[in-house]
């Protein structure tokens, strides 16, 4: 499947772009992260500490074990600091 992958805050800075289109067979968010981290040093570094990474699938917050079935947009970002 083809996914739009979005990055925010320092994940966006480390990866060097706000979004990219990814072809994947990943079943879960965790599988997708493994694929992304293997792409290059920038991706590897962005995903080096998973405790600092949060994820939304189609704009809903999910755990890293969430399935990607039917997903179109996956976003990665650090813990939120609004308010």
């Amino acid at each position, binding site marked *: 499947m083809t996914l739009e992958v979005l990055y*925010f805050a320092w994940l966006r800075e480390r990866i060097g772009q706000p979004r990219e289109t990814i072809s994947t067979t990943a079943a879960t968010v965790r599988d997708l992260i493994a694929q992304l981290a293997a792409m290059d040093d920038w991706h590897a570094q962005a995903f080096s500490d998973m405790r600092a990474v949060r994820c939304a699938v189609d704009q809903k917050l999910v755990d890293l074990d969430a399935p990607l079935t039917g997903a179109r947009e996956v976003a990665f970002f*650090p*813990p939120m600091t*609004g308010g």
Partner: protein
Amino acid sequence: MSARVQTAPFDLTAELRDFGGGAGAVVTFTGIVRDDTGRMVALELEHYPGMTEAAMSDYGTEAARRFDLTDWRIVHRYGRLAVGEQIMFVATAARHRRAAFDAADYLMDWLKSRAPFWKREIAADGRADWVEAKAGDEDALRRW
């Protein structure tokens, strides 16, 4: 009952005009950019367009159900905000004051650690540092 994200400042009197739905109690919370270090000149807020409005709306709807609110409103700014400027605003209206207080408190806890905003502190020399989430923010959600 609405959630908005915007760059422009907001005005409390305007926000509260026609707000409340016949409530007896209206509580507001306004967050203001504060400089704790003596070196910060502004915050820069990034958000996730689309998800931000949906998430704020979900938390508002859940607060309304849980605390039997007659009205609620959330306004959150993004972009560059100088020290002393407003960041965000929550208003809750209920028949009784306890519900209005609790709902505003609840919404703040959720927005702090579940609304997709990220803050960077901008220093006078131009240096920018991402603000880290506090462990306490996550703990606060367990109160509810």
